[in-house]
């Protein structure tokens, strides 16, 4: 205890020296710890979500983009597939298809168009309000609600794809009908709408005044079964209970786009059959997200090994730096040590005094590195999400 007291007194007297040592050691302990924690968290996060998603159908192309977009609502926009692919799975009776259309954003947050089965599949429930009940309704992930300070009853606009494209569809004003509970998954950072709403955002569906009953000034021509309006016909930029019946979709429903379809197979056998059926196609592919993510993590771990080697070198450099500091300290304190020896202090006690000083510095540094690492654990989800966007 007396040795510790002396060591503590020395360190508090030489605060600047102790502070620099603590900072150096804290950084050299925290960095590898932080990288390991982040990689562990990243791995767990990716694995958990991909494990929970048995099969995924999407367009042929970059498998990573398809999985990342469908599971994490990130990465580049993948190619689309047709609604008929959903119907094919439905008709086969081998699994439940959950459509996903993730191509647009609202106030910077990804808009995920899906069906009610998605919420049940991911275990999402509203903290406030309800799930999307009708066209134009939006349900916010907890993170989005916090970030945009939105509550049930508020509105949010979709982002315009191109400001310079005059022919592009106007942003859609969506009503917030619900806010989901926190899940600490990418679902917290998405805006959920019915998949048909994303088709409205895309311009496949729209609503305008009934031309049959419209003013003559907006009519170009009337035919037996067709009325043609001019550019003065205004399209609705918001879907309400009053105008919802005016909304309609143009084209063949079977060709309407989706970015992917999550498939929940009935059994392992069903999964195998659906996979072989889908993968026979030249335009679409069926993936097992876990396999793709494990492949991706293989790359991450190769990079991590490089970091580990770097950290080893940093650790050696820090250890040498500490040795240098101790040696210089011993030289500077030679007279102090000699005085202690003369008044009866053993060489071993002097040695333990030095060890205690180092131990205190190491303990404080380890404690600080631990606290910072705890902070990393708390903020890792947000940090990783921010990095991935």
């Amino acid at each position: 205890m007396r040795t510790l007291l002396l060591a503590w007194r020395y360190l508090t007297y030489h605060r600047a020296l102790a502070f620099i040592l603590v900072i150096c050691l804290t950084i050299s302990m925290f960095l590898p710890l932080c990288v390991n924690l982040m990689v562990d968290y990243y791995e767990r996060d990716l694995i958990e979500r991909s494990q929970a998603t048995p099969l995924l159908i999407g367009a042929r192309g970059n498998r990573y983009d398809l999985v990342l977009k469908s599971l994490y609502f990130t990465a580049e926009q993948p190619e689309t597939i047709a609604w008929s692919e959903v119907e094919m799975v439905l008709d086969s009776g081998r699994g439940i298809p959950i459509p996903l259309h993730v191509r647009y954003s609202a106030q910077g947050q990804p808009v995920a168009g899906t069906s009610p089965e998605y919420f049940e599949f991911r275990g999402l429930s509203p903290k406030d309000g309800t799930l999307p009940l009708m066209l134009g309704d939006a349900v916010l992930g907890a993170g989005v609600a916090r970030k945009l300070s939105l509550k049930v009853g508020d509105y949010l606009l979709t982002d315009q794809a191109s400001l310079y494209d005059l022919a592009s569809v106007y942003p859609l004003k969506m009503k917030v009908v619900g806010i989901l509970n926190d899940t600490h998954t990418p679902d917290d950072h998405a805006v959920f709408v019915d998949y048909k709403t994303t088709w409205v955002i895309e311009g496949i569906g729209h609503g305008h005044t009934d031309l049959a009953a419209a003013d003559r000034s907006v009519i170009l021509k009337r035919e037996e079964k067709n009325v043609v309006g001019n550019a003065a016909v205004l399209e609705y930029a918001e879907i309400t209970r009053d105008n919802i019946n005016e909304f309609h979709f143009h084209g063949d429903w079977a060709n309407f786009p989706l970015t992917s379809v999550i498939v929940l197979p009935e059994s392992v056998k069903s999964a195998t059959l659906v996979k072989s059926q889908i993968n026979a196609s030249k335009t679409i592919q069926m993936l097992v997200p876990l396999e793709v993510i494990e492949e991706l993590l293989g790359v991450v771990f190769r990079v991590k090994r490089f970091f580990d080697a770097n950290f080893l070198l940093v650790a050696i450099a820090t250890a040498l730096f500490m040795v240098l500091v101790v040696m210089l300290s011993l030289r500077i304190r030679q007279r102090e040590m000699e005085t202690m020896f003369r008044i009866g202090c053993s060489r071993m006690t002097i040695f333990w005094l030095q060890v205690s000083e180092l131990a205190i510095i190491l303990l404080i540094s380890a404690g600080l590195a631990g606290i910072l690492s705890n902070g990393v654990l708390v903020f890792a989800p947000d940090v990783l999400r921010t990095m991935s966007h």
Partner: protein
Amino acid sequence: MDMIRLDNLHFRYPRDTFSLRIPGLAIEKKEKVAFIGPSGCGKTTLANLIAGIYRPNAGTIMVNDFNVSELSDRRCRDFRISNIGFIFQEFELVEYLNVHENILLPFLVNRSLVLNSRIRNEAATLADSVGLGDKLRRRPGKLSQGERQRLAICRALITRPPIIIADEPTGNLDPANTGLIMQLILEQVEEREATFLMVSHDHSLLVDFDQVVDVHELASGSEP
């Protein structure tokens, strides 16, 4: 009965040409002895030999019935803790400890000494007696030269050693402080009935000493 007795002492620093030969020296209990002589004649070396810091190459050193030249390192340390109090020219205070802790330093660095509230109070009383009672929480850096040496004296006295060794204790003090410090040391030595050995260049300080040993003469008398 001699407190300190040296017989046929020979000491040589390793890797150095300097050597010290003392044919014999006896110092009685409570005696005040000054070691004088030119620089480099071996005054401090002789004091360190008596304190057991250096080991002689030949001869015997008996101090308070201990044959210092034959003690093991551990026993020599124990001997020093219980028998010797040091006062240095450069004070050698520990800058990161306050006045109270500096006085208690022998107790802080020696496990064999019990540090309790009685000792703490004794340290405070000792500081009070040398005029440092209101500066117990101060660091040595905040003290004057005279105060620093008084603090060093307190540290030498706290273990109540029967022998006090002072190596040029006034070497770093101005004339006014020199007189005061010498007076203080001699008062404390007499009060504690200790044997006092002082290494000094200053012949004006030797009036109150019982024995003055010119180490150069003593050593040269033994040369073959």
